[in-house]
């Protein structure tokens, strides 16, 4: 960061208080430094100001040589007004109050005031600003404008045109942040309406955000519509476990049911955005297929039982042989994974655990170098290699786009298909499928000044393009790949070649895959596919599935089915009935991520706490608790009582997690050591 002395500052006066701010800072931001509030609708700190709603008007003047203040004849919009030397701002004069009343009366002329049935009611900036700054009555007695209500723009977003105050936040979001420009204002004046092209499907992968930034109830969530009143909801901080990014969210719930997800600000992770996959992908919490009681197989049927009987079955199977294995998948907390490994290593004398389902294993990086997601923003150039970021890691995609949009980073996209990042890429290297390693090597060769003609022929990317791309690569280039690349031929060679070209990131895709790797899951002799193959061939005596549905994560369904059919004993530990459920010998109900305390490591090794939001369903237990209780039956000792104790034990054993237990973590999380 630049030294403070290098920033040019100006002295302004706000409500007779002197204040020094960076030159050019918007007045709407400057007054916040003194704790004054300016009401806003269209202004959003993360987007360019447009001055559309006129709500933020203030009186502005300049100091005259004789010390008096000469006010400008008209009020100014604070959101588009840069601070300059000697500026005098008044946010609280009678004239400002009168003007605000006028603006609000005007905004409310065409607003339907259907607050009693509006989803936004109770958390609506228009309601709040009207309460604090607005007139108590309206002089408008004519018939209001009427427009379609409840227009479904997509399966997630419903548009209520009558309520729109035409602030343009949603339009600017799709232009500036998500970049798909799917929304625009049609028509003009009182008829101006934000909508998609021809009112067709709103296809954005980030459409949920416009619901949150809408300052009225014009864009509402189709899923949440009329489900609850905001003041009836309870809200707790949560972590999204739908991908490895670990976005911070607010989980709103009512009577133990998740009602909606909203973005929570964490500058290091997701700023304040969510992707649609995260925002609308939490239905499983309320699924009717949730598992509530332990089940054991008696004869051909799975029958309800108690925990101790289920444990006995497991212990019998897993201690009678050391030829056992476990497969994990996604969204298991660090605590669960550590307790699982401990149980297998010490109790069951086996280390055949794997969490990773890609064709080749991720490269273990002894230096633990995982530059943070936030640092992408400062990279002068970015190479996105073999990853459709908007689909795989949507929030990382937003960072890459921000780096380009705000800081002018040069983005180079290499993929075998068209991706969303192509729209702002400086160069798109569209290679033939399967030639990843060749292209990566060609980039390295071009950088070293060697000829890349042969590689150009093989990959289908012109040699000039490869050379042009290589010219952009420096040691500070952010090279972004994901574990998806590990499914492609020659993945390790490609990663090896890319490593020397900049700051290589190979992001995991499932929540806490990174944590599993750090804890040491997957250090056995067999990888997940081999474990399944052994099970299929009858070479495995018992298999433990921890929160994973192999049918979902493994492409070879025949292999999965044969494996589950042929393994002698199968434990399915899950929170919801999944594809493996019918094959289970024992079913252990597990808490879903929001139902137990836990910590999660995201793709850039940032570890965050996720406190229990909801109570456990039925008799379901956190997985670590079940493992702890089984260990106790194998070898008496002191069990763990809470997630923090598991975390401390983990910290004692794995250096990276030292001082990163549940209670030791701050709200915004910490990078791993």
């Amino acid at each position, binding site marked *: 960061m630049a030294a403070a002395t290098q920033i040019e500052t100006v002295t302004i006066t706000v409500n007779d208080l002197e204040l020094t701010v960076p030159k050019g800072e918007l007045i709407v931001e400057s007054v916040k430094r003194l704790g004054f509030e300016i009401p806003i609708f269209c202004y959003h700190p993360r987007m360019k100001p447009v001055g559309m709603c006129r709500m933020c008007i203030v009186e502005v003047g300049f100091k005259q040589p004789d010390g008096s203040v000469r006010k400008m004849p008209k009020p100014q919009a604070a959101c588009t007004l840069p601070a300059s030397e000697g500026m005098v701002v008044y946010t609280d004069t009678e004239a400002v109050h009168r003007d605000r009343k006028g603006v609000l009366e005007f905004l409310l002329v065409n607003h339907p005031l259907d607050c009693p049935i509006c989803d936004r009611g109770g958390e609506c900036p228009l309601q709040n600003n009207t309460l604090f700054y607005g007139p108590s009555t309206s002089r408008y007695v004519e018939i209001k404008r009427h427009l*379609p*209500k*409840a*227009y*479904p*723009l*997509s*399966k997630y977003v*419903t548009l209520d045109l009558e309520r729109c105050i035409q602030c343009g936040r949603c339009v600017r979001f*799709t*232009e500036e942040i998500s970049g*798909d*420009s*799917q*929304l*625009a*204002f*049609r*028509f*003009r004046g009182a008829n101006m309406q934000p*909508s*998609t*092209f*021809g009112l*067709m*499907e*709103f*296809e954005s992968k980030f459409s949920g955000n416009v619901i949150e930034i809408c300052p009225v109830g014009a864009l509402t969530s*189709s*899923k*949440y*519509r*009329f*489900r609850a009143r905001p003041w009836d909801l309870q809200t707790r901080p949560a972590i999204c476990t739908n991908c490895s990014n670990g976005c911070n969210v607010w989980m709103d719930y009512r009577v133990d049911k998740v009602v909606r997800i909203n973005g929570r600000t964490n500058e290091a992770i997701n700023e304040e955005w969510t992707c649609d996959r995260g925002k609308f992908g939490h239905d499983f919490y309320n699924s009717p297929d949730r598992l509530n009681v332990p089940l054991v197989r008696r004869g051909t049927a799975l029958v309800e039982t108690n925990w101790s009987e289920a444990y006995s079955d497991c212990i019998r199977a897993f201690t009678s042989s050391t030829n056992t294995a476990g497969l994990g998948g996604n969204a298991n907390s660090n605590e669960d994974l550590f307790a699982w490994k401990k149980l297998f290593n010490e109790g069951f004398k086996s280390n055949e655990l794997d969490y990773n389902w890609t064709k080749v294993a991720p490269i273990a990086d002894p230096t633990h170098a995982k530059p943070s997601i936030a640092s992408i923003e400062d990279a002068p150039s970015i190479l996105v290699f073999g990853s459709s970021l908007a689909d795989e890691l949507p929030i990382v995609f937003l960072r890459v786009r921000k780096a380009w949009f705000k800081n002018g980073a040069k983005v180079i996209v290499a993929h075998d298909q068209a991706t969303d990042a192509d729209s702002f890429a400086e160069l798109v290297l569209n290679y033939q499928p399967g030639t990843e390693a060749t292209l990566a090597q060609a980039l390295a060769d071009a950088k070293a000044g060697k000829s890349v003609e042969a590689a150009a022929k093989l990959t289908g990317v012109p040699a000039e393009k490869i050379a042009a791309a290589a010219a952009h690569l420096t040691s500070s280039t952010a090279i972004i790949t994901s574990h998806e690349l590990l499914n492609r031929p020659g993945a390790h060679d490609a990663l090896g070649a890319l490593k020397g070209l900049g700051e290589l990131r190979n992001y995991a895709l499932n929540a806490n895959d990174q944590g599993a790797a750090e804890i040491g899951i997957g250090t056995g002799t067999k990888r997940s596919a081999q474990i399944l193959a052994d099970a299929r061939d009858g070479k495995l005596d018992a298999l433990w599935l921890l929160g994973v549905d192999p049918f979902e994560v493994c492409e070879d369904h025949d292999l999965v089915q044969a494996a589950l059919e042929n393994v002698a004993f199968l434990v399915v530990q899950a929170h919801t009935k999944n594809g493996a459920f019918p094959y289970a010998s024992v079913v252990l109900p597990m808490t879903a991520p929001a139902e137990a305390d836990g910590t999660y490591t995201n793709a850039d090794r940032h570890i965050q706490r996720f406190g229990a939001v909801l109570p456990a369903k039925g008799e379901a237990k956190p997985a670590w608790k079940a493992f702890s209780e089984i260990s106790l039956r194998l070898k008496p000792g002191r069990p763990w009582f809470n997630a923090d104790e598991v975390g401390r034990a983990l910290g004692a054993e794995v250096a990276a997690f030292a001082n990163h237990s549940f209670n030791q973590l701050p709200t915004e999380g910490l990078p791993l050591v």
Partner: protein
Amino acid sequence: MSELVQLGAPHDRPRPPRADELNLRFSEQGIHELEALKTHYPDLKSCILPGLWIAQREYGGFLDGAAIAEVAHRLNRSYAEVEGVATFYTMYNTAHKPGKHKLELCTCLSCHLCGSYRLRDYIKSKLGISHGETTEDGLFTMEEVECLDACDRAPLMQVGDQYYGPLDEAKLDALIDQLRNTEGSTVVKMADEIVQVHLRDVERHK
């Protein structure tokens, strides 16, 4: 519950066309002109307005969704953005297909005082169309417009790129007869005139 109060099922929204699904209709001349216009501006966003004029000519005076999508595609802008621009300006015909000739009758103060509403009623009785309507044969569309900035010729009517005024019933009859005998569409002709104005002499299609 919420599904019941939505207009239409949320899952049957038509999706915007993909680039390869567009039916591109610009003529050689239109493509040539657009390429020339692209060089006039620092970025393609600035080229949306002239691009829409080309489309209005190429699509017979009416900018439907396909026309807007084609302009957006050719300028590498989003469909929604171009549609937003097109629907903002009244000289682009986006709401409905106009007739072959658009009778734009000024109804501002001077024309009003000189009898433009009388002419409006006369058109209604003669052609059966009032503001925003098109005759059944698709020849004429009538629109009441704001000041055309030619009060000295009130009451005034604009047809295509020509002003006609001062008008009375007899002159209107003659004008309508003349338009009936006109070969091409004055709406398309005006779009072409505007495109030509944008182009440099060397870029014009001879």
